[in-house]
């Protein structure tokens, strides 16, 4: 069926139809044109340190296994037996010598090659050539400072090119002496919302911070904040031309320091301020990003919070359902005490029980529920904030300034890119 998309995103991304978040035909097209062709964050290399370790994830709705090979390299393939399509592993993670399908016993090695089929000669009489029925590989894999990304599109540009100027922000998250690692496992939960709503929230939405999260701010530091003044700070957004971007908090330095102290505890907050000083010779003023209370999204659905070090993927599970996966990223150089504190605070503030994210999930699910109505889903939504402030070129980014308010510049960019990807017929 032909989908007329151009009319759904207007004004250079500043007016977006709510049908984007509802229509099943648009969702199906997203699986094809966005998720099957974009670079996806799969896992951190520290999650699969040993030969035979594997981690099960998704690219779009495609189940994918990421596997450490005998030679230390990493490969990834579709978790689909080539015989009848059974999952070859139903585990979240583990360690194996090979993958044997439970349906008909086909066995694949760590690299995805079909190595044994029960009774192959008698059943197939030479008609089944095992080399033709290997697992479908994820066409491209790259390791970016410990983060494993995959792309099903063999024609895809390199990850470096895909990230463009956004690489700077990943560097500021990951460029650590001794590297980074994931602490603990992955929190997983379902939110009844379209995947773009949280992805957009992390790419552009500074406007929601005070109205949505006042309760969490008051709970963490009631003595620090006058509730009447909480909404007083502004946010700017930065973005690339390819849908990536994020929110930077424009609150004054003293407020930010108090905020980070309240969220992380003094010891961890001070670590980040010290880290910024160590990174300053290399990154200049941008080094302060490591303690800025902001957020970011790499198109389409990989997000993080700087400082709070929580990584997340918004896995699409239908037009109105998202499965959120979060990881706590720690810097390997940190003491065990600081790592534990990082994990503890990231669970306290974000995640399903997080005192911030509880309220996000409430808002996102209600925003989605109101699209059930025919009239409601025909409405458009404005992404107009900060439009008159002008977009300025800054090192490594385009900045859409909030000028004390909020900017939705990265949101406009996100939907401009969404439309471009969705309307490109092949390549």
């Amino acid at each position, binding site marked *: 069926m032909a989908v007329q998309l151009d009319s759904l995103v207007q004004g250079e991304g500043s007016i977006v139809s709510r049908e984007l978040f509802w229509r099943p035909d648009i969702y199906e097209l997203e699986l094809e044109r966005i998720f099957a062709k974009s670079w996806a964050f799969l896992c951190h290399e520290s999650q699969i340190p040993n030969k035979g370790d594997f981690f099960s994830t998704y690219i779009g709705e495609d189940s994918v296994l990421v596997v450490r090979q005998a030679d230390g390299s990493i490969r990834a393939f579709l978790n689909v037996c080539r015989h009848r399509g059974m999952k070859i592993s139903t585990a979240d993670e583990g360690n194996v010598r090979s993958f044997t399908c439970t349906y008909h016993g086909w066995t694949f090695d760590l690299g995805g090659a079909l190595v044994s089929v029960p009774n192959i000669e008698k059943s197939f009489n030479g008609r089944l050539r095992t080399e033709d029925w290997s697992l479908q590989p994820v066409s491209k894999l790259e390791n970016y400072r410990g983060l494993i990304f995959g792309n099903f599109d063999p024609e895809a540009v390199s990850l470096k090119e895909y990230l463009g100027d956004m690489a700077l922000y990943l560097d500021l998250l990951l460029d650590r002496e001794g590297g980074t690692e994931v602490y603990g496992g992955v929190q997983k939960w379902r939110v009844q919302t379209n995947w773009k709503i949280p992805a957009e929230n992390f790419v552009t939405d500074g406007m929601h911070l005070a109205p949505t999260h006042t309760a969490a701010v008051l709970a963490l530091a009631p003595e620090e904040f006058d509730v009447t003044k909480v909404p007083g700070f502004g946010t700017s957004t930065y973005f690339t031309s390819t849908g990536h971007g994020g929110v930077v908090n424009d609150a004054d330095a003293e407020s930010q320091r108090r905020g980070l102290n309240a969220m992380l505890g003094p010891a961890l907050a001070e670590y980040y301020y010290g880290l910024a000083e160590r990174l300053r010779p290399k990154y200049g003023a941008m080094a302060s990003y490591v303690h800025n209370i902001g957020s970011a999204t790499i198109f389409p659905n990989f997000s993080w919070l700087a400082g709070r070090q929580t990584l997340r993927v918004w896995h699409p599970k239908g037009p109105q359902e998202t499965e959120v996966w979060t990881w706590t990223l720690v810097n390997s150089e940190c003491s065990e005490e600081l790592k534990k504190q990082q994990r503890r605070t990231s669970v306290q503030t974000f995640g399903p029980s997080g005192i911030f994210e509880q*309220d996000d999930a409430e808002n996102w699910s209600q925003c989605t529920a109101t699209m059930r109505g025919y009239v409601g889903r025909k409405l458009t939504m404005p992404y107009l904030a900060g439009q008159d402030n002008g977009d300025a070129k800054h090192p490594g980014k385009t900045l859409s300034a909030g000028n004390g308010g909020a900017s939705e510049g990265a949101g406009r960019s996100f939907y401009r890119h969404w439309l471009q990807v969705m309307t490109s017929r092949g390549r």
Partner: protein
Amino acid sequence: MASTVQKDEALNAIKSGEVADNFRSAVENFYFEEADLLDQFRLRDWLALLTDDVIYRIPIRVNRTDRGRSVTEVSDTDMLLDEDKRGLTQRVVRLETGRAWAEEPRSRTRHLVTNVRVRSVVGGNELTVSSNFIAYRNRLEIEQDFYVGTREDVLRLDAGRFKIARRLVILDQTVLTAKNMTILF
């Protein structure tokens, strides 16, 4: 409020090894009162049931396959919730602001606690107790979630009353099907 237990009676029962039989109904009464406080969102009263050094944790569950053996593990490093008394108090403060939108208005909840087993005595004044629970949350129009699992508690006798010193909540989901976890178990 919490059931009162005579200290001498408690210590005698502990010494005589009759812990499970003598304490089950007292522990059940305590849990039923606790569940009522949670369902009524009388959370300041609920906080009073916790020792000052309480540790309250909800670990994630993980399906792991290792060399052909598959188990659902309870993570010892990653949590859906990991709080001490200060953190739990902050959660109560959050709700009291009237701006915690995920609980405005409050959900309608029902905590059912069952299969209570007193496992052992620790240090003369602590019991380890396991129990199963279903916490039902109904919200706004028709939203509903079930949080189902088991709890492993350490209950401490404090001035003749039980207090919760440790609680490990093991949920039966690897992917939480609820959009958030706004209530405690």
